[in-house]
């Protein structure tokens, strides 16, 4: 594995501000918003999750706003392992995937065999995708091979399920660490790298996502292998989501602008995007009263 390049934070801020200055209007906005919807991993990861709540969310995944025809479904629903079976039954016969967090999400503070069996369970229950967390404590202590080995072992358990590796960038302190962790996860076998659990702030800032996209870009340039990206947490409105699309387009290219390679981990984003779509279509500003909150 080649050494990770250093990252200058001020330079990253400047680049990000350029993405944010892209003006997305008219047809580009409509197309972009629909793309965003189709990239969302609708997520519920609460201790108080109930089968009822998961059921509602899975229904919404395929019925975002039925009164407005032609909308895509979301990409996936993301749940705890115990809800995978239920979720899977709810979205069968649709394009919506089921993702499960694992490896003692969100802290990752468990021995490796627990993490392996946690993952195995989710895979056995039918999870299409596994969202694992890295051991941030070990990473920050400089025990990179420990972190690497863990990812590699989980990857093995995943089988055909795609592995998303959550770096929990909010705990990594610097962009240099974000870059290092991205490179490490990619080389250890991640199919996707993901910013955050959603439990820690800051989560998916554009600066962090940009840094991770750069790692993906470099890996692709070196190997020709595409890696996916999932910013999660903090992307709650359409504008921010569109800026993320701009970033993916300019850093990685059009090939990445599908939900095979890019996802948003978010729960409240979908409704804001829907409201924007309706606004763009009707010219009227929308009220949240008209959009279901599942």
């Amino acid at each position, binding site marked *: 594995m080649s050494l990770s390049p250093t990252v*200058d*934070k*001020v*330079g990253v*801020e400047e680049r990000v501000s350029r993405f944010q200055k892209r003006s997305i209007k008219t047809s580009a906005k409509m197309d972009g918003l629909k793309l965003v919807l189709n990239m969302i991993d609708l997520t519920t990861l609460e201790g108080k999750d109930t089968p009822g709540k998961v059921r509602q969310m899975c229904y919404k995944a395929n019925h975002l706003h039925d009164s407005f025809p032609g909308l895509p479904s979301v990409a996936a629903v993301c749940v705890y392992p115990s809800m995978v079976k239920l979720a899977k039954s709810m979205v069968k016969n649709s394009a919506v995937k089921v993702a499960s967090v694992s490896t003692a999400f969100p802290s990752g503070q468990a021995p490796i065999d627990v993490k392996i069996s946690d993952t195995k369970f989710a895979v056995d229950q039918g999870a299409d995708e596994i969202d694992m967390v890295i051991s941030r404590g070990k990473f920050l202590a400089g025990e990179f091979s420990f972190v690497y080995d863990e990812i590699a072992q989980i990857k093995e358990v995943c089988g055909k399920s795609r592995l998303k590796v959550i770096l929990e960038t909010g705990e990594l302190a610097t*962009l240099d660490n974000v870059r290092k962790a991205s490179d490490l996860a990619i080389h250890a076998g991640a199919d996707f790298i993901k910013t955050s659990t959603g439990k820690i*702030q*800051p989560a998916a*800032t554009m*600066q*962090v996502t940009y840094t991770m996209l750069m790692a993906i870009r470099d890996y692709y340039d070196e190997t020709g292998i595409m890696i996916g990206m999932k910013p999660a947490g903090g992307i709650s409105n359409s504008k921010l989501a569109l800026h993320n699309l701009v970033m993916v387009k300019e850093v990685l290219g059009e090939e990445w602008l599908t939900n095979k390679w890019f996802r948003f981990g978010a729960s409240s984003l979908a409704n804001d995007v829907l409201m924007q779509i309706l606004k763009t279509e009707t010219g009227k500003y929308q009220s949240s009263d008209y959009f279901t909150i599942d």
Partner: protein
Amino acid sequence: MKRIEVLKTYKIYAGGKFPRTESGRYYLALNINGEPIANMCRGSRKDIRNAVVFARRALGAWSGKTAFNRSQILYRIAEVLEGRKSQFIEELILQGMTKSSALKEVESSIDRIVYYAGWCDKYCQIGSSVNPVSSSHFNFSTYEPVGVVGMIAPQDTSLYGLISALMPIIAGGNSCVLLANEKMPLCAVTFAEVLHASDVPGGVVNIITGHISELIKPLATHMDVNAISISNLPELKREIDLYSVDNLKRVRSYDVNWNSKGNQALHYITDFQEIKTTWHPIENIGGATSTY
């Protein structure tokens, strides 16, 4: 029998050596009564050319010395000059001065050297700035020597003017090629010996004697000379300005009475400095507690 005095040979000073002019020419320095006092080298354009090469070569090491070290070397010049006072007084008298005014000129010259010695490690502090730019960058401006300076020594004094104009140039880390006072050249050459004895590296100051009218052109048109200093020669200003256009030399033309005690100042140093501004990002935007 009266002892036969050993007469001094006045030569030019270039690259830390005392060669004769490559041209082999000479001219007579006369005393106030029009009587010859010495054969002076009548320097040529090739002497200028060689001197500029020496000055350029010496520049890096001289400007790269610590300011404190330059300060010590300048102070050393004053020390050596103090020890050789009588020689300068004799020469000044030979060139027509009274003893008391010669003494005053030498002593003032020494004091002026001490003055500029003290500036070496201070002028940067006064003229530099940290600039509060409106972005997340650390930005500062500081002085750097302009480079090789061509100096035409004031023609109205033999020693004091030369020292007044030269010291700020070298205090600031520049190297110099100077044309001595044409009519009163003795002190310039003897001062070269002082420089030579004072740890000033060879090539930092190069002193050419000869006809000013003949030498300003090769000096002021030289593409490797970065600046020109002239004082009290308004009749030459236009010519020098024109010669200086091709490589945009910085021409400093002074109209001053160097003999006045007050005519020593910081700006004579900074006139031969460039201002360099450096930028670098500052990582923490909005303070240490900021988040990305």
